[in-house]
């Protein structure tokens, strides 16, 4: 094991963790501590900012700078924070309600601006803290306390929204996939720009088993695909299934059947500027095509916080003003003696 400057314990606060026993958030928290240790960025150079909801309690459990803000506004607070102090590594934590309902506007704009921060969206398709209402990611017809006869609306798919907002980084994991979660968190932190990480997370109390179709151990290997840049898109318990191009779409095939060989299987390119295939990969839901986990898109683009800083430096250098007084005296003035 390589020598690390920090251990996971260095990122843990002394606060008692109050999530329900068995909640998927525990796993995310533990992985985040480990990912931070792997990244080696000092706790005092790290900030974790959240909105409101179960997942938004996370900053209290971090020995970093942290801010538990108000419902939906974590993205706006994080944007201001990062612009004000670009030296800090910023993590934002939100849920599906916080990030996509009340905070939907801030979400699309922080993605569009490409603010250099890492956004963990814990998606359990339910409002947990208010005890069980449907969320903007709940499927049509979902029955909850606020939709006793089923919802009459279609959900957002977080990736689709992120791509619609011209996202430069999108990754996905599942709360129970600790290794992949850590891998995508580290990749998110290394990416310069707004890194959106969706983590499918289970709410034991109000939506237990919502991701079972995907997470069930017996079928998980067939219903998910772990995408790794530069590697063939293979999945299945025996890694004998692959994704191939099929017209304008994708198709899952079994190697050796219908004439398909390993050569037909697509190689993942997370760095491709076009998001056309990334979006198709991200939209796979585990039914006809396996749900994609891992880093789906990771491209470079100018970041908002750095560009603000650069512009300020450029204009300052060009104008050469030292103070407000310089500025005012350079305008229209007159003397009274």
């Amino acid at each position: 094991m390589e020598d690390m400057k920090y251990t996971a314990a260095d990122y843990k606060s002394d606060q008692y963790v109050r999530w329900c026993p068995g909640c998927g958030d525990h796993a995310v928290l533990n992985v985040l501590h480990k990912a931070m240790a792997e990244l080696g960025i000092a706790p005092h150079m790290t900030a974790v900012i959240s909105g409101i909801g179960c997942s938004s309690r996370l900053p209290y459990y971090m020995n970093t700078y942290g801010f538990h803000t108000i419902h939906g506004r974590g993205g706006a607070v994080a944007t201001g924070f990062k612009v004000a102090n670009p030296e800090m590594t910023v993590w934002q934590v939100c849920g599906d309600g916080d990030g996509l309902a009340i905070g939907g506007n801030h979400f699309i704009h922080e993605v569009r601006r490409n603010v250099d921060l890492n956004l963990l969206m814990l998606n359990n398709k339910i409002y947990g803290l208010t005890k069980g209402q449907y969320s903007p990611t709940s499927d049509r017809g979902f029955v909850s306390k606020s939709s006793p006869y089923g919802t009459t609306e279609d959900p957002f798919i977080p990736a689709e929204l992120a791509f619609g907002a011209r996202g430069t980084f999108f990754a996905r994991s599942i709360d129970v996939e600790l290794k992949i979660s850590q891998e995508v968190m580290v990749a998110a932190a290394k990416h310069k720009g707004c890194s959106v990480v969706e983590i499918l997370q289970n709410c034991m109390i109000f939506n237990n088993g919502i991701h079972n179709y995907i997470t069930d151990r017996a079928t998980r290997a067939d219903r998910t695909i772990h995408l790794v840049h530069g590697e063939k898109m293979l999945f299945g318990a025996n890694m004998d299934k692959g994704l191939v191009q099929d017209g304008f779409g994708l198709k899952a095939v079994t190697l050796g059947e219908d004439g398909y060989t390993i050569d037909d299987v697509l190689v993942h390119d997370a760095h491709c500027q076009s998001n056309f295939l990334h979006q198709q990969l991200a939209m796979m839901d585990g039914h006809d095509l396996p749900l994609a986990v891992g880093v789906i898109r990771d491209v470079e683009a100018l970041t908002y916080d750095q560009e603000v800083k650069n512009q300020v430096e450029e204009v300052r250098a060009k104008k050469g003003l030292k103070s407000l007084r310089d500025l005012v005296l350079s305008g229209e003035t007159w003397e009274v003696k």
Partner: protein
Amino acid sequence: MLEKTNVKVLDRVVVRFSGDSGDGMQLAGNIFSNVSAGVGNQISTFPDYPAEVRAPQGTLSGVSGFQVHIGKGVYTPGDKADVLVSMNPAALKQNVKFLKEGGVAIVDIDSFKKADLDKALYTTDEPYKEIGLKGEVVEVPMTSMVKAALADSGLDLKSVMKCKNMFALGLVCWLFDRPLESALHYLHNKFAKKPAIYEANAKVMQAGYDYGHNIHASVSTYRIESDAIRPGTYTDVNGNTATAWGLILASEKSGLPLFLGSYPITPATDILHELAKRKDLGVKACQMEDEIAGVCSAIGASFAGNLAVTSTSGPGLALKSEGIGLAVMAELPLVIIDVQRGGPSTGLPTKTEQTDLRQALYGRNGESPLAVVAAASPTDCFNMAFEAARIAVEHLTPVVPLTDGFLAHGSSAWRIPDEDEYPAIKPNFVKPEMLESGWKPYMRNEETEVRYWAIPGTPGFQHRLGGLEKDYNTSAISTDPANHEKMVQARQKKIDLIARNIPEVEVQGNPDADTLLIGWGGTYGHLYTAVEELNRAGKPVAFAHFRYICPLPANTADVISRYKRVIVAELNNGQFADYLQAKNPMTDIKRINKVQGQPFLVQEIIDGVTKIMEA
């Protein structure tokens, strides 16, 4: 030439320029006020914009005005105009109510044809009579003279017509004996990059000036007195620009980088414009996706250690309420500028009121006290923006500086202060040695109740803030009932104690009078002028004007208790009067109120005070 003319000597004079919103009335008015300031006059100006961006030419809804008050003892843009310049019948109709009885109206008679009158909805062919114009009318064939002056210029008709405002300005400069060279200098700066346009405008301005000279037999000219004003270097500044500059000085004086998170809203947008330009002074100005993101990005920047500001008007302040509550709870410094306009809801966006006082004081859930200050004049916006920032970072609290549409767009001459005229701002930072003694994020200074500010990036001071109630001792989340009450009282006391760090309220006018007139914020000029006139007329009145609203200056109750009659005059239904009444139950506070989207007229104050004094 003046000696040949009938010269009137006046202390002060009001000139109102009016025309289509594309006629350049603002520019003519601005140059006129700058030129007047240059000859030593005090100046105060106020634009009157239409709500529409570009209404049809020549129609009533497209009229734009610009009022300039010059002379000595000038504290307001003036109630009514001595001279009204109207470029068309619509402008004359809309502005005749602002002309003093016996004043002079100067009109472009070329634009008073039947079609022009129809467009402005005149129903007779006697326009002056129809609108009840009582003063002298000077009919000037401006359009034809401008066309003649520029016949050889090679400019197209549209460009030629755009020079008409400079003809009017030239004429007014002659009327008030303003040096044309100075006006040409400002014009040159304006069109420095367009020499052909400058030449045309300069020629037309000269033609207007000469025209005045040639017709001098038919009209008086004026000589305007000047005050002995404090020596120094002056510039002309409006309230919004002054606000932006005050924040920049606070940034310099505190050593904190300045961050603005904002969203466009009338009449506050110019603050965003100015601070966006001031990237050349290191300002990070961000136009966010909405009002909420404006305040929340500022809160994030404040947490990160910047001097954080958001700027807005009433509807935006409503949207920011929850965010401001977070800053109250997290005890972070934050400046929330509210340029008040007519409300409620969208209300009268381009007009002025003082109706957001209660919203600023109380518009949040829970017990959520913060500091409120209010600027008294366009140039005082500089001081109060600075003060808001100083209070915010020295007391770790949100502060709302209230200005208004009248101050925001009004301008006056401002003596550029020396840097040492303003104090250093000392943020209440943590000290490294606090780590050993068990520092907690909500640990307070015992004298001020202010917590200590630890800037992210500082080793060892990692901490978590949030909107949940915290334990007074450990700073961990707490729902303990007694602790909550203790924290509520601590936050309140922190605000109350700011009173030790602000100046006392001054009593002006005649302090020995029985009657005390009280005002706050942007009405200062009108109230001050009214008080001077009342005292001159043998009606003794003392005057206290409040710029620190919450907390109130420490001597407030003492001042109020000294007077038999206390009157609060304000542009709302009595919000400050109620606030003072609750704190001073032994005094029966009288009120003068106006809620028309317009500033007070000095005469309204004089009448209102007189009526109460004689009751």
